[in-house]
């Protein structure tokens, strides 16, 4: 694991307006995540875990402060620049898989590659590799409806890593899975972190899931509290 932070938040504030009230989620939040880290973010509902993930993924902007990810200050990028930046640097894994139902597993995995300059043959090779990593090479032609929840989440992971992003952002990746499938997915994320060096930030409510991470950040009332968990 490198000491260079891949993710750095500096004095980030974020809030929302409800009716006439302005409610702060974070105020002047600082955070540094080194490259190769695997961080679980836990905290009660409404603590801002998902908002944090949105800020790191460039799909939301802070009210104040700076967000640096993968060498870019992203809070100042335009929407178009953010789209390109996300395509190149971030892989997302969602709680409900969010696969396109009308596309096969291979086609779902290929989606991010449509944003690259790769040719058809190269794209196919990347897709095969990504599906092999998640042990779904034999289900390439299957549609999401033909797969279990765990398998769909594995396809979603393959989609997240197919363009070789530096950072994986996982939002409750096991929240919709049984324990066995959840452990399988978490094991897979651990392998991606350990063997392929992917930096992972995972939001979860599940302490068992958090144990797969190298460390856990507890987010509450706009502040972090850190706990080292794994080697």
């Amino acid at each position, binding site marked *: 694991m490198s000491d260079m932070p891949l993710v750095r938040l500096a004095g980030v504030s974020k809030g*929302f307006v409800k009716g006439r009230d302005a409610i702060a989620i974070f105020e002047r939040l600082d955070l540094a995540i080194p490259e190769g880290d695997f961080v679980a973010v836990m905290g009660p509902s409404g603590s801002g875990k*998902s*908002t944090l*993930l*949105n800020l790191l*993924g460039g*799909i*939301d902007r802070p009210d104040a402060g700076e967000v640096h990810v993968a060498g870019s200050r992203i809070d100042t990028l335009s*929407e*178009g620049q953010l*789209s*390109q930046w*996300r*395509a*190149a640097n971030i892989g*997302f894994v*969602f709680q409900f898989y*969010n696969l*396109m*139902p*009308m*596309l096969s597993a291979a*086609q779902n995995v*290929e*989606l*991010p590659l*449509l*944003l690259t300059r790769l040719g058809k043959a190269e*794209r196919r090779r990347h897709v095969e590799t990504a599906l092999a990593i998640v042990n779904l090479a034999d289900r390439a032609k299957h549609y999401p409806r033909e797969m279990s929840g765990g398998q769909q989440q594995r396809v979603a992971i393959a*989609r997240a890593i197919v363009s070789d992003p530096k950072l994986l952002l996982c*939002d409750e990746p096991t929240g919709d899975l049984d324990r066995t499938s959840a452990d399988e997915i978490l094991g897979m994320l651990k392998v991606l972190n350990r063997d392929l060096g992917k930096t992972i930030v995972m939001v979860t409510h599940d302490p068992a899931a958090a144990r797969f991470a190298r460390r856990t950040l507890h987010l509450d009332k706009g502040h972090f509290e850190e706990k080292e968990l794994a080697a």
Partner: protein
Amino acid sequence: MNDFLLIRKNLFRKKLRAILMIVSILIAFAIFGVLAAFERAFNAGEDVSEADRLVVVNKINFTQPLPIAYFNRIAAVEGVRQVTFANWFGGYYQDPKNFVIVMAVEPETYLKISSTDFAFTPEMSQAFVRNRTGALVGRALAERWGWKLGDRVPISSSIFSQKNGSHTWDVTVVGIFDKAKPQGDTNLMFIQYPYFDETRSFGKDTIGWLLLKTESPAVNDRVIKTIDAMFANSSWETATDTEKAFNKAFVAQLGNVALIVTLVVGAAFVTILMIVGNTMVMAVRERTREIAVLKTLGFSGGRVLRMVLGETLLLAVIGGTLGLALATLFTFAMRNTLAMFVPGLQMSPGIVLTAFGFMILLGLATGLVPALNAFRLRIAEAMGRG
């Protein structure tokens, strides 16, 4: 995989809905195609009109006769180069249902003036002039009834009778002519006026209309005024007009076809615009989360907008092309049946091009709102976070 595959897969993800939308568009474009083909056919007369040709008819209306003596008087008007005349025969073959366009014409002058419309050979022209009972038959009409050169054909009139009480005139086919202009029609027959006039039981020495050629279109107005002034306050006042205006007025008797086309097609389009537009808005709303996922993966707002517009364009082009194909089949099938009433009924390249223009407009109009919604979609909100 590419964007087109995504567009196609999105469009057909709910097959029944896609099929119903395609059928709606198909019906609209089938109606458009058929009506536009009729409108085109009705107005074909305008296209074959010559700028230096004038038509003189009875001022009351064109079904009322004029005296044959007008022929020489009009020929003497300054600016008139050639004159001819004709009389509507009201023909049919064997059965009144078998309507045939027959005109009794002054043989020599009529062939000269209409030589720009029909390809009369010198041989058939001479044969027609020499043979009082001769008939020149258009190619389409001859083929319809299997008439050949030299055939003796009994042609009946629903208006006129012979002095012996018969409604049928026997004529001999002395020539089968083709059209001289692509938009022309050959579903008609010419017989000699002298033969018709001598044998008919009433209306002798009267004619239906005069057709004349002026020295140039520049003198048309002067000639029109001179002719109408010449016969003003007589028992047979005239109304003279350019051939184009006359043909247009003739078509107008059938009703404003262009207006009918516009209203019917307009109503169909507006209805379909609302149906397809509303359905597409709902379809895109159903996919809010998927669109947010695409944007999360790095698809730009512009690219998502193009994909939604691509979907509605594809829908419009599929439905429109099928509708146009149906209209083409219909006009082709009806072409012979309606040949006597609506000659030249066909799907012209102009109609096809216009239809494709409408398809693109329809696709853009129905896709605009959902595409803009997809473009503006904020990922964080759509994903139910934040």
